[in-house]
């Protein structure tokens, strides 16, 4: 597993940050005031979690629309995790083929 993917997993290991990503998947963009209204945490905590998601490459600032700073998911942010899923399934296909060979040979 790459460092990049490790950072994504670490960022998503926190339920509050997962809730933020889910809000972004639902709504497209969000902001500190909006997340503060939705979540039972302070504005400072929201800003800190957003910074962690930004550092992991999961979110970015959206082009400004008015005075409010808005955030959106970064394109392709979850692609490494999708690659993990595909690699893991391919690895199990190979292992299960070997298991089948070993068990059937033994009969």
């Amino acid at each position, binding site marked *: 597993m790459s460092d990049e993917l490790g950072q994504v997993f*670490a960022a998503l290991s926190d339920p509050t940050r997962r809730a933020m990503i*889910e809000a972004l998947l639902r709504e497209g963009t969000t902001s500190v005031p909006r997340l503060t209204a939705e979540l039972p945490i302070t504005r400072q905590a929201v800003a800190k979690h957003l910074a962690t998601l930004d550092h992991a490459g999961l979110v970015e600032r959206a082009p400004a629309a008015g005075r409010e700073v808005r955030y959106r998911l970064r394109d392709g942010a979850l692609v490494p995790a999708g690659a993990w899923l595909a690699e893991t399934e391919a690895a199990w296909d190979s292992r299960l083929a070997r298991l089948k060979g070993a*068990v059937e040979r033994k009969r």
Partner: protein
Amino acid sequence: MSERTREREAARTEVEIEASPEEIWEALVTEEGRETWLQEPDREVHVEVVQAPSRLVWWWGGEDEPATRVEFEIVAVPDGARVVVTESEPAFPISLLAMSFARVLA
């Protein structure tokens, strides 16, 4: 949660083997058995659930990798048995991925 999301909760694949669940079980649960097919010398297996001969759960991980959970279900079928394996990273909700793909496709 939608059907689509549910099916992407974990990496999942399966195989049908012409052998009894008990014969397959031996190859999964013993170290000697695993040596014949697993070929992952850098990963240490820690068995969590043992329900012979139908369900086995282990955790494993290599160096610098978060531990993942592997579950085997063995179901008898007419010509042998089906083995279904799922591997998941519990800290990471794969459902998020499905949501993001749905969004891209929308």
